[in-house]
Each structure stands twice: as C-alpha cells, then as structure tokens.
C-alpha cells in the first residue's frame, strides 16, 4: 500500500475499506480524524441468505425486531455527512434484506456520502439496482465465495448463488456503476486466487479484494476449516503482487493478508477510534466489527446520543484511542504509532486481556503458541464448517465456547 499512499507528491490516497483489518490506512502525518472518521460501516441487518462460516458479524446475531427504523438510519446518514464522514459502507448481513434500503441510500446521497453497497447479490433484481443507482448509490461490491460454482455454493450454503452474482455484476457495469469483487480467501479456495483475478477482469470490475479471512468470531470458531498453510499463503501473496503489476491501470487489487503468518501485527482499523466506526443493526456504535467481544467496553446507541458525541466522547472509542492505554512491549515499541499494537479483539480472544500486544506480533508471549496451533490446524484435513446461522449462533454463544483460546498458558 505504501507506494499508493506516497502517490507522486500531488495526490495522496487513503484506503477506506470495510474489511476489519485495513480500515483506514493513511499517511501518518495527516490528521485524518480531526473531528470525524472518514469511513463508516453500517450493518443494516444481520439477516442474510448465505451462511458463510467466516462471517464478520458477531456470533450473537441481532434479531430483525431489534433493527433500527428507517427514520433512525436516515438520521444517521445525515449526521454522518454533517460531521465530515466521507464514505459509508452499506453492509450487513445482507443489506438488500432491508426493504427500505432505497430510502437509506437516498439519505446517504443527500448527506453527500460516497455510498458503497456490500452485497452477496443473490436476492437483488435489476429494477431495484437501477432504482438504487438513480438514488445516488456510488459503488457496488459483490462477494464471490469461490470461482467454482459448486464449491462457492457449498461455502455459502446457497444453491444457485453464482449465476445470480454474475447477473448482478453484469447489471452493475451496464448501469455505469463501479464494481468491486470481494474474494474471501481461505484454505478451501486459496488455489483459485489467480482465477478470481481473471474473473474480476472479465466482469469489468475496477477493483478486487483478495481478503484473506481474519480469525475473529465465526472465523475463529471455524479456523481449522479455514486457515491455509504458510506456503499456500505466501504463494497467493506473491501471485497477487505479480498480477498487480501486470494489471496496472486495469484492475486495482487490494489484499488483506492473514496476520498469523506475519512478524508484526496489522494496524487494525488504522488505529482504534482514528478513522472508522461501525454501527450495528440495533444502532450500537462500535470502533470495529468485533469490539463487542471486549467485555470492558460500553457502547452508545445512535438512538440515545448524537453520532459526533459518541465518536468524540464515547467510552468505547476512548478506551484504546492513541497509545496511552498500552502495556509493554507495545509502550516502548518503535512501531507503536505504526501498528497501534495490532488488534484489540484478537488480544482479547487469544489472551483474555485487550490491552495485551496482539498475539499476531512476534513480541507477544502468546505468538508462538497461537501460530503453532494454527499451523497444526492447517496441516490436518479441514473439519466441517460451523455455518453462520441462528441455530449455530445459539450453540456458539453458550459461555463454555467463549473461553479465550490461550488464556491460561
């Protein structure tokens, strides 16, 4: 990413991704969050026709009757525009499951927000897409669970998904909207990274996200079924780097790499409470997708408090903002303003203390054991998926299942 950010001196670029890992990556010298984040992820609903085992939603899925009203979502969009947020990701679950998506898109457009629809696309018809485009929708991102239809439909547990996605992708480009293909990568499709790139070019996409699965929530539960080997991971990264050069000016390939095999942690969300916020279907405002897994945090709701006030003064946003909260080895680390100690939720999940160094960091005392476990899982045959659905959610959120993986080590 560094080359892109440097630009040629006249134009810097900042990534405003919806992925849990990149969030916002930008120049360290620029005050991105003077008063507001530049990106906002709105999880309009947790309802989804697909059941992917690596879903970034929390294990505890929000019920439909807890979802925010149309009026509240429209107010959120309007407040976001006023406070200086620049982009909104309309996501879920499946955002098109909301019958009022049209009104929410209109509100986002009116607020001056650049809107990204992040969809599985299996329930979207052409007339609706056309209407959304007319209302000011700026960009569509479609996930493909694999390039091989049979495998894709097994991973997403939705027969017939692939043809529907291909149809929608075609409509998106026909309507003149920019298209991103999202490719969630794991051990059961990592052999197809090259073919994903071919597919994105063939569909006329501007952008492809090679998003290696990150292991929180559902994906952590399914880690053994998902984590690729070190060699497979490395080969996929090298392939993407070669293809990026070949496809310069044709296709932008963004890559989210798995942090288990890195020496230093990712700068999760571009820093806590720095450039990104996430709103749940019920209106809770989170610093990241998985923040609800940290029990010491208190989350404000857009129904009770203004968005700007939550961003500036909310307990959850200030808990890990900056570097004052850090313990050793982060506190005295030369990279603390670069990677911000990595991911708080991963520290919580693996070490039971969100202030610990992310165990993806080689300086973490938990690093060796976590990586050894993952490597061992990757070398064994993949177990069956625990699909993301309400029944499995109920089973997975029983207290016994939530023990931190390495807390006692």
């Amino acid at each position, binding site marked *: 990413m560094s080359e892109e950010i440097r630009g040629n001196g006249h134009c810097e*670029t900042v*990534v*405003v991704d919806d992925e849990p890992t990149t969030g916002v990556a930008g120049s360290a010298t620029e005050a991105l969050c003077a008063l507001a984040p530049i990106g906002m992820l709105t999880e309009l609903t947790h309802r989804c026709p697909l059941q992917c085992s690596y879903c970034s939603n929390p294990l505890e899925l929000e019920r439909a009757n807890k979802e925010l009203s149309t009026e509240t979502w429209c107010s959120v969009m309007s407040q976001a525009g006023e406070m200086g947020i620049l982009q909104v990701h309309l996501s879920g679950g499946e955002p098109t499951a909301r019958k009022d998506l049209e009104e929410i898109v209109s509100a986002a457009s009116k607020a001056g927000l650049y809107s990204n629809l992040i969809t599985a696309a299996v329930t979207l018809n052409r007339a609706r897409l056309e209407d959304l485009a007319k209302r000011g929708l700026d960009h569509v991102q479609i996930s493909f669970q694999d390039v091989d239809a049979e495998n894709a439909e097994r991973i997403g547990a939705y027969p017939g998904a692939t043809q529907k996605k291909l149809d929608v992708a075609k409509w998106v480009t026909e309507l*003149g909207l920019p298209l991103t293909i999202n490719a969630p990568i794991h051990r059961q499709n990592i052999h197809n990274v090259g073919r994903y790139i071919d597919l994105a070019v063939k569909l006329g996409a501007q952008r492809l996200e090679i998003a290696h699965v990150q292991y929180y929530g559902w994906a952590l539960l399914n880690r053994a079924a998902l984590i690729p080997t070190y060699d497979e991971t490395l080969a996929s990264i090298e392939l993407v780097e070669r293809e990026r050069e070949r496809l310069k000016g*044709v296709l932008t390939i963004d890559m989210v790499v798995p942090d288990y095999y890195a020496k230093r942690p990712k700068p999760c969300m571009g820093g806590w409470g720095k450039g990104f916020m996430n709103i749940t279907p019920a209106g809770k405002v989170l610093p990241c997708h998985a923040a609800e897994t940290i029990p010491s945090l208190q989350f404000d709701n857009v129904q009770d408090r203004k968005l700007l006030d939550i961003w500036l003064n909310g307990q959850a946003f200030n808990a890990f903002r900056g570097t004052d909260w850090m313990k050793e080895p982060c506190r005295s680390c030369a990279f603390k303003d670069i990677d911000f100690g990595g991911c708080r939720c991963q520290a919580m999940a693996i070490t039971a203390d969100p202030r610990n160094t992310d165990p993806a960091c080689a300086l973490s005392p938990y690093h060796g054991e976590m990586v050894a476990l993952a490597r061992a899982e990757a070398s064994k045959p993949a177990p069956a998926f625990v699909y993301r659905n309400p029944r499995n959610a109920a089973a997975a959120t029983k207290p016994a299942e939530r023990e931190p993986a390495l807390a006692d080590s």
Partner: protein
Amino acid sequence: MSGEIQSAGRLIVDRQTKPHLPTYLKLRNDPGRGRWVLLAPERVLTPDQTAVAVLKLCDGERTVEEIAETLAKEYSAPVAIIATDVLDLLQGLADKGYIKG
C-alpha cells in the same frame, strides 16, 4: 517507461490525451478538514492545490498539452516543467483507474 510491463487496456497518458474523470469519481470540498477530496470506491484521494487545478481541467475535451498551457499561464511557470508534472500526475492516477482518456 522502458522495461515496464504494459497491461492491455492500460492508458498511457501523453500530450495529446484528452483526460477525464470517470463518472463514479467525485471531486468534493471537505470543509471540516480544509481540503479537496476525490472520492472513489473505498478510497479517498487528497489532491493538493496543483492536482485540484489539473483535475478541474480534465473535461475530456482539453488535451494534456492544453491543460499544461492553461496552467503555465495561470501560474506564470515554464510550460515544459508543468507538462512533465501534469503527465506524471495523470499517469499515476490512470494507473489506479482514476483517469480515463
């Protein structure tokens, strides 16, 4: 450019190119942060004053040469230097898919 891999479909910006921004890019003022931004799919570009001046002239009708001449007059600067700078800027943006010719 020598030694560089050329991808099919890559726009090579030269002095006769008539650059324009694709419709999905939005050049907007960002008053809270006192700057201009170019909004793109999951990207925010922050062009400096020079880049904004160039982008505002990228209307699909003016050639790069004409853009450079206009700016050279406006800033009383040598057109050769401006032209090189404009080409460099636009090629960089074209390689990210943000300029079409």
